[in-house]
């Protein structure tokens, strides 16, 4: 993007069943990393590789990444007036099924699946009666992302600041959803800059991203240390 190098040194391995938290101050490159994994083409990749289940992820289009099991919960979900949630989700679920060689769901089967996932996440039915995110509050948008994740059952979910802007109730719903969807076969990357979310979703690993680099990795205790000492603690040792 306009000649600016955003990410410079990232080495990360995520295994099935694991939850990784990526923390870091604003502007450190967390969303950039998440977007690159999902296939956003605004960025030029100068070097590096990303392997997902033995495949070169960077070779794949965003839609194929999604169908292969990558899911990005956006930091700022877009509103798409005129595209009904139901139409969009049905197309999405059926594309995933086609990729797996499955028949598309009938309208009835689809509605049933939707109802089951809504119940599981304790969502009200309003969300799916409207256009995608149109007029949704910040909290509703984030819940809608988790709902889509529940419908698509990804192998690797990347949640970009799904906690920011949520009140405590919405945060609990989102966190419970993420926990409920967790299985030994899938993995989660939680991107956040607060420690708050980690009270609800316990990570196996915590990485600190600063200035495009992972400057520190550790267990969940690293999050508490960060909370206590603040990002200055990281910055002091790392500014050039």
């Amino acid at each position, binding site marked *: 993007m306009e000649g600016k190098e955003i990410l410079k040194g990232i080495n990360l391995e995520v295994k099935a069943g694991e939850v990784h938290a990526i923390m870091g101050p604003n502007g450190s490159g967390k969303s950039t990393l998440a977007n690159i994994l999902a*296939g956003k083409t605004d960025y030029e990749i100068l070097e590096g590789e990303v392997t997902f289940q033995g495949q070169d992820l960077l070779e794949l289009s*965003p*839609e194929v990444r999604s169908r292969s099991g990558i899911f990005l919960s956006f930091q700022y979900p877009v509103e798409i007036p005129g*595209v009904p949630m139901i139409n969009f989700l049905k*197309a*999405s679920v059926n*594309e*995933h099924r086609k*990729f797996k060689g499955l028949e598309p769901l009938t309208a009835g089967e689809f509605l049933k699946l939707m109802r089951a996932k809504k119940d599981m996440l304790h969502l009200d039915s309003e969300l799916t009666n409207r256009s995608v995110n149109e007029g949704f509050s910040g909290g509703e948008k984030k819940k809608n992302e988790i709902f889509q994740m529940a419908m698509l059952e990804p192998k690797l979910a990347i949640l970009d600041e799904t906690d920011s802007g949520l009140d405590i109730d919405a945060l609990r719903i989102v966190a419970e959803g993420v926990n409920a969807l967790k299985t030994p076969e899938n993995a989660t990357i939680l991107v956040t800059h607060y420690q708050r979310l980690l009270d609800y979703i316990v990570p196996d690993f915590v990485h600190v991203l600063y200035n495009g680099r992972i400057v520190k990795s550790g267990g969940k205790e690293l999050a508490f240390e960060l909370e206590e000492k603040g990002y200055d603690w990281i910055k002091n040792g790392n500014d050039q």
Partner: protein
Amino acid sequence: MSIIHDKIAPADQLVSLFEKSREILNRGSSPILNRMREVSIKRFAQTGIPGFKNEDYKYTNLKPAFEKSYSQELVRESGLINLNEVYSRNIPELDAHLVFIVNGWFYSGNKPGSELPNGVVFGSLEQIANDRPELLQNYLNRQAGLSDDPFVTLNTAFTKDGFFIYIPKGVIVEKPIQIINLLSSDENLSVTQRNMVIAEPGSRIKLVICDQTLSPASFITNSVSEIFAGEDTLVDVYTIQNLNNQSTAISSAFYKLQRNSIVTTGAISLHGGMIRNNLKITFSGDHSEANVNGISFTDQKQHVDNFTVIEHASPNCLSNQIYKNILDDESTGAFAGRIHVARDAQQTNAFQRNNNVLLSDKARMQTKPQLIIDADDVKCSHGATVGQIDKDALFFLRSRGIGEKEARMMLMNAFAHEVIQKISIQSLRDRIDELIEKRLNGEITRGHI
């Protein structure tokens, strides 16, 4: 603005064609049509075909289209319509009172009256002007005759036929009336068509007008419609234009709204070489409302120009316009919307919006709002946007597994949706959604080859 009366060959040719054809034009036509001809051809001769120096036509140059040679059917040609062929052409099939017009002539096989409520008069303009001139004479050319537009004067000089609808007081026509304008010829053809709709107080009518070329010849159509919406009427007029790339369509519609009436229009320009739609709304009674909408799809070298004039001549009226264009390849579009609020038209609400999506670097859109406000207690707004498909929305859909082509289609449908949802006929909305899908995946274009 400078006005240059440039005499160019095509206009002279049209005038001399008129001179030569005067007798044929008058023959069989009602005197109330014939007596408009002479003055109209004179007025046309003074202006000629407008060039880009004419402020109202600066985005649409119709001169090249008039430089080709065309034949004209000055007398009704007999012939049969092959309905199977017609319906293979992407015309929406509706539960409607259906008639056909072929090359401007009301088709002799139509049975328009059979299921309509008592008192409704619906049929050929030529025939009704002959049989019942009293129905027309207080209305004919009352709006169009005030216009200086050269295509309107040209139309009036050459008018032979078209459709005529009269809805008596309080009559509600439940089912839509569908008028299918077919253009069918082996050689290039120039078509003149004149239409009138008179809705008496308290009546209700919905019209669906479909323009369709059936052969690859070049057509140039010039149609003028005058619509009179009486007090407390509801009048809906939807047009779907689906013409081949060699064709030029010029249409001028004049709506006069009396007290408490509501007019809704939707201009769907699906396909066509060059399309110019003039639309004028005159509020001549208070508390009336006009919802004026349009969406056009252009690609290749196509051009669509919507030119609207909203004349707020009475207080407490509402006009609401949304025009949208989706432009691909080297196609071009224009929207010019003039709103005039007269001095006495207090408490006017006039809104106008024009949104455009360019799908290629070479597509161009011109948009020009013009507000002339002589009253002080009014609410007016206008806005225009020209942009690309929303990249973030596209990425979002793809990131959920939806392929790029499909995702683009969804976003374009969504863009069009705001206009389509204003159509009051559910089955027509559904048919149009399908047609838009076909338009965007190339099927409509292939249908013209």
